[in-house]
């Protein structure tokens, strides 16, 4: 393999953790800077192949056929975007023979054959980045991919089941790092592995992080756990990225593969962009090639993205809760002051309290006034933040949904039109209703002030 070419594998200890979505979007981002090829190595589920099925010619040759020798390795991968190419797991027209797939995966020459194929693909098309999307779980193609890759990204979730799968996967890799490959079913021979394996760094990505975890706490937890690893693998003790759970993308999963292209400012897109920069060590010049990457030149913004564990929806909900909390406090303080004043008035009139020549009690009305002003100001501040967040959120969602309809190029259905209209209403509603309400309140206050002044003058 050429020295300039970077091989990056996406693996996981169990399926369904969002590995394929991440791999596909990561590959698309890579293609904005380098010529990239995405290869689906998940022969069992073929997730990436399914995602790209609409973009590929039906006679495209798969990796499986190449490994079997049924297809020429020199056949160019299919182009799916400007600088992005794709190789499906299995040819679209080839009905899979599951027995043969199992045999191919257990073949002792799997890694060698894959290495040769990757070399030939890189040589002939001059790819700078190769992204391998592996099967979720313990799988020989995943072992081979890890051995050949400069970076292995283990995608997991913050739960016991995914963590168990991750540990199993690492143990599986360790076992196969000890120099044995699975014997072929027929002869039972064991072969020593060649020593030229890359066996690059292994980084962990925690995907779909629930909003209950703050960055510092969850990072400390994972650093302690990964730091205690004493195996032979080059496992990084720090988690590469914590990606929050966003309904934004899960609702449109499968509609269009490159969601980060359509929503480049979303948390997922920003996290993937940062991962790309950190993994490839992109220079400022390279960052200029794709506009959304430019903002990540600032270390402060990078740190903000790194420490974000909340999706935009969760942030909006939090701001609404804060605004509500402050409003309740302001109302309670006002009502309390009023009740106490009424009680005091009643007592004062019923029992003539002797003054005994003492100084009059200090008046705390000013303090109440300050508290009311502060609480109302904070209510307005958080309402403004929540409102602004919602305006941007619905605006992004509307643009995202419209872009999906646009890129798919299919005639738009009535339901799609209705869904778009709903988002359009929410987008303009969140923007216009606070303005309209603000205008009414302002006008009402002006009228009251004018009437009061007129009353005084009269």
């Amino acid at each position: 393999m050429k020295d300039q070419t970077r091989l990056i594998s996406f693996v996981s200890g169990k399926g369904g953790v969002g590995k394929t979505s991440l791999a596909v979007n990561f590959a698309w981002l890579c293609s904005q800077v380098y010529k990239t090829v995405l290869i689906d190595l998940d022969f069992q589920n073929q997730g990436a192949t399914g995602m790209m099925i609409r973009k590929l010619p039906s006679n495209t040759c798969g990796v499986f056929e190449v490994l079997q020798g049924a297809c020429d390795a020199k056949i160019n991968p299919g182009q799916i975007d400007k600088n992005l190419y794709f190789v499906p797991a299995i040819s679209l027209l080839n009905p899979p023979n599951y027995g043969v797939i199992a045999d191919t995966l257990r073949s002792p020459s799997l890694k060698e054959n894959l290495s040769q194929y990757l070399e030939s693909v890189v040589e002939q098309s001059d790819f700078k980045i190769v992204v391998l999307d592996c099967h979720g779980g313990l799988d020989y193609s995943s072992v081979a991919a890890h051995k050949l890759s400069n970076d292995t990204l283990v995608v997991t979730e913050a739960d016991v089941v995914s963590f168990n799968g991750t540990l199993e996967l690492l143990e599986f890799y360790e076992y196969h790092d000890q120099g044995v490959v699975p014997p072929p079913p027929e002869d039972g021979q064991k072969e020593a592995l060649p020593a030229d394996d890359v066996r690059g760094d292994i980084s962990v990505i925690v995907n779909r992080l629930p909003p209950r975890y703050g960055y510092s706490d969850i990072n400390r937890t994972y650093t302690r756990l990964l730091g205690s690893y004493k195996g032979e693998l080059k496992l990084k003790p720090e988690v590469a990225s914590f990606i929050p759970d966003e309904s934004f993308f899960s609702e449109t999963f499968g509609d269009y593969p490159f969601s980060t292209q359509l929503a480049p400012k979303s948390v997922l897109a920003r996290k993937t962009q940062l991962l790309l920069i950190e993994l490839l060590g992109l220079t400022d010049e390279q960052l200029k090639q794709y506009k959304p990457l430019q903002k990540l030149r600032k270390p402060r913004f990078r740190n903000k993205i790194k420490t974000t564990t909340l999706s935009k929806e969760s942030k909006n909900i939090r701001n609404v809760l804060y605004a509500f909390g402050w409003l309740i406090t302001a109302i309670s303080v006002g009502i309390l002051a009023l009740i106490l004043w009424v009680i005091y008035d009643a007592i004062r009139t019923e029992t003539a309290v002797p003054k005994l020549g003492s100084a009059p009690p200090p008046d705390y009305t000013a303090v109440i006034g300050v508290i009311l002003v502060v609480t109302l100001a904070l209510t307005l501040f958080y309402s403004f933040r929540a409102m602004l967040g919602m305006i941007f959120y619905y605006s992004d969602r509307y643009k995202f949904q419209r872009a999906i309809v646009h890129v798919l190029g299919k005639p738009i259905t009535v339901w799609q039109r209705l869904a778009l209209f709903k988002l359009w209403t929410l987008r303009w509603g969140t923007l216009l209703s606070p303005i309209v309400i603000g205008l009414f309140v302002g006008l009402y206050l002006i009228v009251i002030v004018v009437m009061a002044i007129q009353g005084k003058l009269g």
Partner: protein
Amino acid sequence: MASQIDPSRLLQLAKSEQKKQSRVVELIGGMLKSDVPASLKAFAASLLFLCLSASAVVFALILHVFLTLIPGTGIHVEPMKYAALLGAHGVLAVLLGFPLTMKMSSVEESRRLEADLLKVQSVKRLRRRAGGERSDQAH
């Protein structure tokens, strides 16, 4: 009306209030040990603490009103003082309670997750220490 107030009755009231407060403390302690979700626990705990201290202020106010009713003491009810006290209390509770609740929830959830993941990790280590040959052979 004012002369009918018995000072021992006031003492009794104060004692029963103290009893109530200690019961709340017990309740909070018990709840923190229980197995309800951490965020709910943290929120409920801060709410209970808020009620506890608010009840202390209200109790002081009631006491003050009673004392005001006894002629010749020269004590005046200062309603705005209590409103200001409770108001400031509310502001502090929201100002500290919200971020504190979130932080507590995050810390406790992370600890709980870590404990669970550590269990998984230690099981794997035990399995490794116990030995046994790993194999790729198909059955």
